[in-house]
């Protein structure tokens, strides 16, 4: 069996991480499933484990003037209790897994697991979240789209851990979150969608779309969004088909045991279209 350590402080965690590679265990709701074995036998982790769920210093939500700071070990259920947590993120969390899982799972865990179907990732992309990765030596703030570097791969190095998620404060005119998971709880997404926009003087001044589960990482295209900035709603509506086809060129949905390419593509189209119909 591998070494398993319950760390007592962030300092201890970082110091251990500087010595060797560990699996960082937050809520464990993905790790336990991924490392499952036969019943009545211990979980066969392949690397030593650092249990971090009890780190009280990483359980918080703090509001600053421009940013919201979420401690990495704050559970999803706890996040739902803060008024300052953006609606878009709350909507995603409310539909994630089940109450029992939300009571122990964390945002940092969802980020670290880096599944293309990770449901909290999609609103975090739209919210321009920053991921704070800390090591003994330094701390880096990585924009979420740079945090994910490939299928199930992140920019996190072996000596770092996620200590905080930082969300810029925003006042959108409207947001839309949709999870397509077929059943109403405990479902893995076939497609997920988080859109937001703002309008100033009848012109779109902010327009964001993030789409999950249709590529190796969440799809967010700043270049497509830029095309709509400064446009009136009418102008934007006219560009709808063009916008949709631009997005379709950047998705690569798959056929698997849960759905197929045709469905994931069509629903992506429909969701973008439905979101653009909400422009008002």
């Amino acid at each position: 069996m591998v070494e398993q350590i319950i760390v007592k402080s962030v300092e201890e965690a970082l110091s251990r991480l500087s010595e060797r590679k560990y699996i960082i265990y937050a809520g464990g709701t993905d790790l336990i499933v991924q490392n499952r074995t036969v019943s009545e036998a211990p979980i066969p982790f392949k690397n030593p484990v650092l249990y971090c769920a009890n780190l009280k210093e990483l359980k918080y939500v703090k509001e600053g003037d421009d940013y919201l700071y979420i401690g990495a070990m704050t559970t999803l259920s706890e996040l739902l209790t803060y008024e300052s947590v953006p609606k878009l993120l709350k909507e995603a969390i409310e539909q994630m897994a089940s109450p029992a899982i939300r009571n122990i799972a964390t945002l940092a865990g969802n980020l670290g697991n880096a599944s293309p179907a990770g449901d909290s990732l999609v609103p975090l992309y739209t919210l321009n979240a920053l991921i704070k990765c800390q090591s003994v030596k330094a701390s880096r703030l990585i924009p979420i789209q740079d945090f994910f570097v490939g299928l199930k791969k992140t920019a996190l190095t072996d000596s770092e851990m996620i200590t905080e998620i930082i969300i810029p404060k925003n006042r959108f005119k409207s947001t839309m979150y949709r999870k397509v998971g077929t059943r109403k709880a405990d479902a893995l997404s076939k497609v997920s969608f988080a859109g937001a926009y703002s309008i100033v003087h009848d012109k779109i001044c902010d327009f964001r779309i993030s789409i999950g589960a249709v590529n190796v990482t969440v799809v967010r295209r700043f270049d497509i969004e830029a095309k709509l900035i400064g446009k009136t709603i009418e102008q934007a509506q006219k560009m709808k088909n063009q916008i949709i086809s631009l997005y379709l060129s950047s998705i690569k949905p798959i056929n698997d045991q849960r759905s197929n390419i045709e469905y994931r593509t069509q629903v992506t189209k429909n969701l973008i279209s439905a979101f653009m119909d909400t422009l008002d």
Partner: protein
Amino acid sequence: MADISKSIEKVDLYEKTSGEAKYVSDFSYDDMLYARTLRSTVAKAKIKGIRFPNLPEDVHIVDYKDIPGKNVVKIIFDDQEIFPTEVVTYIGQPILLVVGKNKELLEEIIHNTIVDYELMTPIFDWVSSAVHYHFQKGKPEEAFQKATKIIEYVYDTSYQEQAYIEPQGFIGTYEEGKVTLIGSIQCPYYVKNALLQALDSKGDEVRVIQATVGGAFGGKEEFPSLMACQLAVALKKIKKPIKMIYEREEDMISTTKRHPSKSKMSAAIGENGEILAIKSNIGIDGGANIGLSGVVLSRAMIATTGAYTIENIDSSGDVFLTNTVPNGAFRGFGAPQMLFAIDLFIEHIAKDLGIDPLEYRLKYLAKQGDPTSTNGLFRDPIIMPEMIKKALEISKFKEKAKIFSRPNVSKGIGMSWFLHGCGFTGSGESTHINALVKLHKTKEENVEILIAAVDMGQGVRTTMRKLVASLLEIPIEKVIYDLPDTDKVPDSGPTVASRTMMIVGGLVARCAKKMKDSWIPGEMLLEERYLQPSYIKWDEATMTGDAYPAYSWGVNVVEVSVDKTTYEVSVNEIWSVYDLGKAIDERIVIGQADGGIVQGVAYGYLEVMNHSNGKLLQKNFTDYIIPTSMDAPKMTTVIMDNPYPLGPYGAKGVGELTLVGGAPAVAKAIEMAIGKKVFSIPVTPEKIMELMKHE
């Protein structure tokens, strides 16, 4: 005396909610070993050889060479080997057991064992018919010749997994020549009889005891016999206690499921739009061996005209063998497939003829005195007209249908009508089962119910005790009903086919009445054996006569919304009306009704299972989606009294009835919501997208 239907507290409520109930995985013995299974990774092959890694001395291999008796699992059709001697015929098929003390080590050994296969060509298409049945009623050929129009459609149904929460498992001991198994099972005597043949043992050398069962749904009818035979062979060889519990994934890839089916339906239509005859041809995928598939097929075929009376019928069907996991018993047992086809078909005929489906269906609704599909007789009163009236009323079906049928309303409401034959098909009860029950009054004036019926959550431990207490007019605490043990209880038959209360309970009730009439202080032992009512006539060869002694009836109404952006279905509300004779305990029936309809509706729109070249693609609950409580809508259930003379207090079958109407009701609701005909279940968002594409 109070009405028998008035609910009492479930007798196992405390032990189950407190965690005291002992499931098979809760048992253990000193010096206990574990058994793990080496499985085929190919769909069809000859085994040329098996190369094991270095085996420690205390690790044992158990295979076909160790079987003392016949290498056949005794079920109904005996075509399944306990361990393959030479050829494997499906992916996941058990080849041998590896038995030892350390489970992780066993896993490692299995992982490092190499089976040398000589691949053979597997069959996945439905071309190899192993069972073919055919029957007719009236003169279907003449009717088809007279027809002015023929309407034909094909209906498909997919796999359904029982998804019991507790996986399959046994624990066994070997003491002084006697094999004892404790298991999660529905049919203690099926297991015992299979063991006797496998071990070549005499009756008292094998004992089977039921542990608390964590769900079964038919999945623990015949499958456990295979596992039990393998474990018993190991026990006889190693002579130490052995525990054998499946993990979820191996359970899902290797145990029986509901048969996928294809039903070709055609109707001869007369000049006034009337149905002159119906022809049905159903194919079901048996998987790699026949097992119970023939019996499943016959129940499906007998349901050819569902809750309707059609004068002329031609019904044929086949069990096709494929190199896939064997399919078997599942709540409904063939009926859900055909009831989906026929209830949709009649609706589609009406739509094609431009007639209101509700009116059209009412014309053909079966009445007391009508001949059944197999020319038996509906002897008992049929109260479907009242039930339908009630269902229409509580669901506001007509008003809603009118609004939902308008274009651009993405809601729908669907109504299914159905029946379910109670007990074994045909003469099964008298020829195969011949049930025996006993009641034993102890010196302490407690009354022990001695039957092999299993409580798998459906509540029979409560209802049987209530029944006996009520008839004997003694407190329920004075009635004992322990988990069945074949050393103590007679063979009252398997816990299947919605027969437990009606057939076994009927015998128990007669026994109790005799006990009451002859009541003396002190010990008494009375027994009662099943006797087929003389008016029930069934000819197995021509499939003619009374297929069942009685029928339960039902109406389900399901309302859905379909999301036009994502094609997802939300079930908004469900209304059900049932005639199950008489509820022995209302709350227990409601429990069955809630679970049954959710499982039946999910079969119609949610639960997806497919195989690719014999490999199942959904092998855990992440990928095989069953409804959660969030998906279960508000449900209203109305139970109507229509006592059946031979059932205890008039009770008929309950368990399966509540599932079989779910799929057609939800499919029709989706049809209304999207304005397209549905021919295939489950009606997934992916299928709805395809249907809506062709606007």
